[in-house]
């Protein structure tokens, strides 16, 4: 018996040796870099095409650590903030980039960009480029970008004799939702996120709060979540969802709304511009070719979409910074975008990172309906001035402080409970105000 156990143990150790080599996959290949990515479809495409990079750079082996958004964020923040050097490339967003750059955790990519012929920094969508810069230098480069706009079913609008204004107000959207809502045929008037999470419910709701004239903090960091404007905005959002929203809205995030809208179960959807890759793909969507796109609805403050970009940065602790930059510059190049289009299909191209993407004939053919609304939304000048009244922060759908991940999530839990009907909007906002006041106090707000 003992002999059998020993044999099994040795076999396991041997296998582990093979396993390590397999995971590394690069024994004898030269330099090896570890890349942390979020497991979204576009990043999975990147992993599928990695052999193209290996062909161009045979001396560099790329190993991916692919995790869902929250886990990836936690893992990379932990590793980079403690200087552990586990990753040579990290996938972060325009929320982390300026904060991490200010903390000295990221390599300044300015010199790398300058010495790379044909990389063309000016080709990046200007708003995205700015959002990924700190003190005039880019600290991460965009893999893809997104903003928010309103999507609507042209066929349902035509059937009911309705028309969508190019720049609708939220009141107009509510009126349209009331006319289009048809529970009998499983069609909700509008789909909106209600799932707790700073990147889920708070993303669209923050832009609604902004356009209603609300804000998270005043210039002296005093919490403003019980102001009349915020109260009005949240009541509007909650009422709209409860009356004409999708069933189970309190548990619906981006993915659920995407499935709902793609299955033809909603007449309108206000969400990320990145949804188009799925919606316009006839294999995964029943509404391909039937969707119209207009600017994010407004109320008082104009132009209130969000701006978000998944981008690639190099931690300062990387011991393979040159190899890491070769990979980063490949994955964010014009050449890569063309490669995705030709190999995997134009609907899978990472959108809104480069202006030249919208000049590619294959992509233009596909993106005719949504290219302009996407670019207009992303270039809307609201990120630095997201609200009607002055604020001490930037960011359309977030507050650019490290505490916001926790604050935004806690507030979203309260507001999601209001959407579910478990508590009143007033109670949810009173609790949210307490959370925000605690965070504001650490910045001097009293």
């Amino acid at each position, binding site marked *: 018996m003992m002999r059998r156990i020993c044999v099994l143990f040795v076999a396991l150790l041997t296998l*582990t040796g093979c*396993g390590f080599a397999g995971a590394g996959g690069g024994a004898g290949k030269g330099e090896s870099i570890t890349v942390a990515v979020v497991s979204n479809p576009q990043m999975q495409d990147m992993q599928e095409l990695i052999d193209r990079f290996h062909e161009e750079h045979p001396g560099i082996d790329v190993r991916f650590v*692919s995790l869902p958004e929250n886990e990836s964020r936690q893992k990379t923040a932990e590793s980079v903030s403690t200087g552990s050097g586990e990753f040579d490339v990290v996938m972060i967003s325009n929320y982390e980039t300026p904060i991490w750059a200010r903390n000295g955790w990221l390599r300044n990519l300015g010199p790398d960009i300058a010495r790379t012929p044909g990389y063309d920094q000016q080709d990046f969508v200007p708003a995205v480029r700015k959002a990924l810069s700190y003190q005039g230098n880019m600290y991460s480069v965009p893999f893809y970008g997104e903003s928010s706009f309103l999507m609507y079913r042209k066929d349902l609008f035509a059937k009911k004799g309705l028309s969508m204004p190019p720049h609708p107000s939220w009141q107009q959207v509510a009126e349209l939702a009331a006319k289009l809502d048809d529970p009998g045929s499983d069609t909700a008037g509008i789909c909106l996120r209600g799932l707790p999470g700073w990147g889920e419910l708070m993303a669209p709701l923050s832009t609604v709060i902004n356009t209603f004239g609300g804000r998270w903090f005043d210039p002296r960091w005093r919490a403003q979540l019980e102001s009349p404007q915020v109260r009005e905005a949240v009541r509007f959002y909650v009422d709209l969802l409860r009356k004409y929203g999708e069933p189970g809205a309190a548990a619906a995030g981006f993915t659920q709304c995407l499935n709902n809208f793609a299955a033809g179960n909603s007449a309108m959807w206000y969400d990320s511009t990145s949804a188009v890759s799925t919606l316009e793909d006839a294999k995964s969507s029943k509404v391909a070719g039937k969707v119209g796109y207009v600017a994010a609805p407004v109320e008082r403050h104009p132009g209130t979409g969000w701006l978000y970009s998944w981008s690639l940065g190099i931690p300062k602790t990387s011991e393979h910074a040159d190899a890491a930059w070769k990979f980063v510059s490949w994955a964010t190049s014009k050449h890569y975008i063309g490669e995705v289009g030709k190999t995997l299909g134009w609907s899978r191209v990472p959108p809104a990172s480069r202006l030249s993407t919208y000049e590619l004939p294959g992509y233009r053919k596909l993106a005719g309906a949504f290219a302009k609304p996407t670019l207009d939304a992303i270039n809307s000048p609201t990120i630095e001035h997201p609200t009607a009244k002055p604020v001490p922060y930037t960011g359309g759908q977030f507050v650019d402080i490290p505490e916001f991940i926790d604050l935004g999530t806690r507030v979203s839990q309260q507001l999601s409970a209001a959407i579910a009907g478990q508590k009143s909007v007033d109670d949810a906002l009173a609790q949210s105000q307490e959370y925000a006041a605690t965070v504001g106090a650490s910045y001097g707000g009293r």
Partner: protein
Amino acid sequence: MSEIAVRRKGKLGTSIWAIGAWIIGILFFFPVLWMVLTSFKTEADAYSTTPHLVFKPVFEQYASVFSSGIGPYLVNSLLATVVSTALVLVLAVPAAYALSIYAVRKVQNALFFFISTKMLPIVAAIIPIYLAARSISGLDNIWTLVVLYTGMNLPIAVWMMRSFFLEVPSEMLEAARMDGAKLGQEIRHVLLPVVAPGIAATALICVIFTWNEFFFALNLTTIRASTMPVFLVSFITSEGAYWARLAAAATLASIPVLLAGWFAQKQLVRGLSMGAVK
């Protein structure tokens, strides 16, 4: 009440209990069945709003999971599970023996100390553990996980094994001693055969806890030492639904634990019911 009426009432009661047990069993089993069925569907079928129980099975999801490099994760999980469970048993059996057979002073304090280590939420300790692992170059090292998993399961194993040892009649051990058995012989030939079902139950609990452990694996590994739960979450995406592929990966990840439970089934039933009837 006549004897027939009493018997009929007893039969009715048994039937109600049986039906209740079946309903609860089906309720618990249904998500597992759904997972397995979904793994054989296409992505479009998987999130169809009118789910189908009858469909043409496809194997593309399994092919996709296998082509994602499942091997190293599987081996790491097997190594961490087998070695840490073996270590737990090697340490827990003598500890439980000492705490049950011999009159150890302040045994309750010792037992409380063991279990108190489980009271601190792991998330509260992760930063010190992470920094400690980093300072000994233990990040992304499977042996770091083995040590942590051993520590994680040891208190439960000691408590479980102690309850099994307490079931052994002291007369049996005294008889062995009177026959001249030494401590090692007493444990090997008398005690262990009696508590074997208990050891099997304890081992299986440790295997399940270790196999499914996610938090340490996520935080302390990157590439070389990542385990199955980390592999599994790489199929979860916040943009788009890949339920069929996720279900295929989850089905594959469940198989080793199911096999372990199946092999240990006979011992397990005896082990889990030990102490239930005295």
